[in-house]
């Protein structure tokens, strides 16, 4: 029984890996990925920094967290609508890959993409400003677990049964943009107003930004363990919710 379960899990893990590979080949080079994944966070950071007398190195953790957030969640919301629009979705769903494996594959692709692209602002921040990586393990945990949670959020945002990517992008920005303001990306949690401090724990970006700040030698607001645990819970919750919405949509014939 246990061996059978292990074999099934191995099969679905393989299927998730194949789906992730397909996503990487098919979707990573699409213009919205570049626009929303790289250009958008850069301009967002510049808008935040304009007119403020902040040391450049103090902005680096925020830029890294923002880049991670936008790159990891850029693809996920669009994959399923693109698949539906291109009429490739039904064949994928009628393959032996389970719905969970398909969604996990989409999330894996987003997470790897986000984590890899985030190395760029990290390298630039370290090279071009006095910022230095003080605790690499915490930084790595923040990037890896943050990427997993954000890409799972992207997969959840793709759950509405639509074949119009622009609709999903609207929903995606409606959800993602407010999360930035309550996550202490640029204003440390301790300096946020009380309402902001109450809302911060509801955003996965809070925990990833916290870990990344620790990685760059700044003070943690939550503990490292609770940051990691919260990001893991968010990732699982987003994927489970996405699976539920997809299953409901299919039950309705969409």
């Amino acid at each position, binding site marked *: 029984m246990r061996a059978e379960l292990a074999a099934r899990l191995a099969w679905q893990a*393989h299927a998730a890996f194949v789906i992730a590979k*397909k996503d990487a*080949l098919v979707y990573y080079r699409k213009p919205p990925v570049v626009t929303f994944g790289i250009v958008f966070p850069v301009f967002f950071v510049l808008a935040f920094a304009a007119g403020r007398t902040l040391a450049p190195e103090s902005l680096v953790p925020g830029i890294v967290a923002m880049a991670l957030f936008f790159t990891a969640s850029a693809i996920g919301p669009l994959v399923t609508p693109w698949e539906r629009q291109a009429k490739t979705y039904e064949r994928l*769903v*009628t*393959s*032996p890959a389970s719905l969970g*494996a398909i969604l996990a594959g989409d999330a894996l692709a987003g997470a790897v993409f986000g984590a890899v692209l985030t190395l760029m602002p990290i390298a630039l921040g370290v090279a071009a400003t006095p910022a230095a990586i003080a605790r690499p393990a915490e930084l790595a945990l923040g990037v890896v677990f943050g990427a997993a949670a954000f890409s799972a959020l992207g997969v959840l945002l793709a759950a509405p049964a639509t074949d119009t990517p622009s609709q999903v992008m609207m929903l995606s920005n409606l959800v993602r943009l407010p999360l930035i303001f309550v996550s202490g990306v640029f204003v440390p949690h301790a300096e946020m107003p009380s309402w902001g401090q109450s809302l911060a724990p509801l955003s996965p970006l809070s925990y990833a930004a916290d870990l990344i700040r620790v990685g760059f030698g700044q003070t943690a607001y939550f503990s490292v363990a609770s940051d990691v645990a919260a990001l893991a819970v968010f990732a699982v919750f987003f994927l489970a919710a996405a699976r539920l919405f997809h299953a409901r949509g299919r039950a309705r*014939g969409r």
Partner: protein
Amino acid sequence: MPEPMIEAHGLCRRFGDALAVDHVEFVVRRGEIFGFLGPNGAGKSTTVRMLTGYLPPSEGRALLAGIDVGHDPSAARRHIGVVPEEANVYADLTVWQNVMLMAELHGLARARRTARGEELLETFGLADRRRQKGRELSKGLRQRLMLCMALVTDAPILFLDEPTSGLDVASAHLIRDVVTRINRDRGATVFLTTHNIEEADALCHRVAIINRGRLAAIDTPRALRAAIQSRRAVEVHFATPFPDASTLAGELSPDDIVPLADGYLIYSAEPGRVAQEIATRASARGVRIASMATRDPSLEDVFLHITRTRATAPTSGGQVHAR
């Protein structure tokens, strides 16, 4: 008797208040090519989607190779290759990448999938295009590629939903030829949904006709044709101006007469007698007959007979299974 490979047990599907598929029941055995016919909106694609696990049934259950699709969809789907209706290839993947994607999803080992992929690209005339992107292929080539993607899985069951619809003659012929070969050589079970009655007649061991969500008939094409002997016909073409059909063939219902450009197709249970009568009356009126032949019912006649006359309650037609 070969084992059942596809089983539909009381399959029903509702969309809101509308009943799209109504207690459909059949069994397809190993090695059969099973045609699934019906007019637009009859419930063909909805039935296929329930059988392949894309759509959960409102009632009933589907089994593939003995595995309940609702209970263990992934295990059941390892036994199938699917060409869904209105599906497409990945436009941004090459021909080879598209084929390998499906092989990998079915867990084929690298050596096996490479050998099988190369063999299929050769068979379907796509070997020279393996590096071309899906978006660069014509409709016919894309359909060939989709069939490659279904066949590379080595699955014992194939679901083909309108595989030759809208294709050029050469592509359609190639696909029919390959389907026949994989059935004959590998013993694959094929579930073929099609609008093309001639295709179903030529390829299928058995056909089922679905009408308004209900299974109206299921049997071999020959038995279905034999079941509607009243749809035998006389086809007559005249060499000179010709009179009204009723003056030529006595008491005939207008429903039994189909006007042709230079004659008539006249349906009758006694085509010999009708032919004799037409010849006699034509001679008496000085009308010259260019050609005349009696015709057995075609599967198209069966299809039209069933879908026009059996709005709700099916009656016998060959071996008819319906509820």
